[in-house]
């Protein structure tokens, strides 16, 4: 039975490299490399029949929470026991498994994917490497690149992006700036050091989630705004897709492309943000003393 379960999870889903593992089988390899992203969504490849009825959580001896599917413990694609550090995250993951109807749609289980990534660490990176990878996005940050041409777009970028830039510059006491040049703004080394130091205070779980949010939004500034609770997920996604929204206003909205992308981006960003918040919070309960 355990072996069966293992085989089921041998089809891994990771946040970082969730496109490669299952595409290298037999004659499909070439086609799927070409299709890339589309392959991950082809229904046959990423769905499995649902093989359980009940989903429950339990707390292990070490204080970590585990997920059980019909009394069988959930495992990661790498074969480790699936454990998460707190109850809220465990319940959110259990809900994802519980929500699956007839087939398991792994591409809709973002929190499970993120947990798998942290537990298995398929890219074998340490904290320093993740921070460096995340901060690389600062050099090409979405909100730092401005257009010069249609005047409506120029005004829009100024009105919407400048407040967030101002906010982050004040909040972290750094200089970022924006540019119309293809080379982007010159970001001082001191700014990067400040952010690197700040990111160093997060644990591996939160960092993985944060890097995921940054790669989704293509912006360090917006991700920090979201994680520091200055922006909501909807606002951050809107600001990240500002140019697309502008084009939609002119040319109309195409449901199967624009809305489809937007909801996916929202779901992924929300999952990442939730993951960071849930795995970095320490909940303490302080009770009021009863007065006599």
């Amino acid at each position, binding site marked *: 039975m355990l072996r069966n379960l293992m085989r089921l999870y041998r089809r891994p889903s990771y946040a970082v490299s969730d496109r490669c593992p299952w595409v290298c089988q037999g004659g499909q390899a070439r086609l799927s490399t070409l299709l890339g992203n589309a392959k991950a*969504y*082809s*229904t046959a490849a990423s769905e499995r029949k649902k093989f359980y009825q009940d*989903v*429950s*959580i339990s707390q292990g001896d070490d204080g970590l929470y585990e997920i059980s599917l019909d009394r069988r413990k959930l495992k990661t694609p790498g074969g480790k026991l699936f454990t998460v550090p707190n*109850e*809220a995250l465990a*319940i*959110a993951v*259990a*809900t994802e498994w*519980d*929500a699956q109807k007839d087939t398991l*749609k792994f591409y*809709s289980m*973002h*929190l499970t994917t993120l947990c798998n990534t942290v537990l298995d660490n398929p890219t074998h990176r340490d904290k320093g490497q993740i921070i460096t990878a995340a901060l690389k996005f600062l050099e090409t940050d979405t909100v730092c690149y401005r257009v010069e041409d249609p005047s*409506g777009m120029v*005004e*829009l970028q100024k009105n919407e992006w400048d407040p967030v830039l101002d906010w982050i510059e004040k909040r972290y006491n750094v200089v970022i700036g924006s540019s119309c040049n293809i080379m982007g703004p010159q970001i001082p080394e001191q700014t990067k050091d400040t952010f690197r130091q700040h990111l160093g205070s997060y644990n591996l779980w939160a960092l993985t989630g944060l890097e995921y949010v940054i790669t989704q939004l293509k912006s360090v500034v917006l991700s920090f705004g979201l994680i520091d*609770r200055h*922006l*909501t*997920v*909807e*606002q951050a996604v*809107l600001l990240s897709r500002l140019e697309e*929204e502008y084009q939609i*206003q*002119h*040319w*109309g*909205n*195409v*449901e*199967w492309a624009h*809305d*489809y992308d937007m*909801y*996916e981006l*929202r*779901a992924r960003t*929300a*999952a990442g*943000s*939730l993951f960071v*918040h*849930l795995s970095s*919070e320490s909940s303490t309960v302080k009770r009021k003393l009863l007065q006599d």
Partner: protein
Amino acid sequence: MEFPLSECGSVVLKSKLCQEPIETLGFQEKWRRDKLRFKMAALISPLRVCRGILKEIRALKGREYKQTLAYNYVLDQFRKNQVSSERYCRAQEEALHTSQSYLCLLASTRLHLALHNLYHGKGERAPEEVAGMVGLRLPTQPGGKGWEK
């Protein structure tokens, strides 16, 4: 700028909030109206978030949604975070933000899956169907002109 999108049957041309045709409003004005929706998203009340999440759980689980782990946990958390006075409470704001993210995750995943099933979940479409999606029709006769003879 004149692009006959609105004539195509299945292309959804809508300004996200307002029902008025796109051409009647200036761009900045439209943008401000649209932004209102996102601004409001920032000020959404805890009760609405709570009900929103419970509604999503219900959409996922159907009738027995009250027996799920998530239902009880969410209700419990919202009850715990109620405060009796109007004092500024940072923990409560943090909890509200987190719960809003969760609501967004559940709603977006549901809508994304719905769109996925509607448009992308069926594999390749027939040429006629693809043409129909952008409001076109394939010629009925393969030979093209001259069919009327």
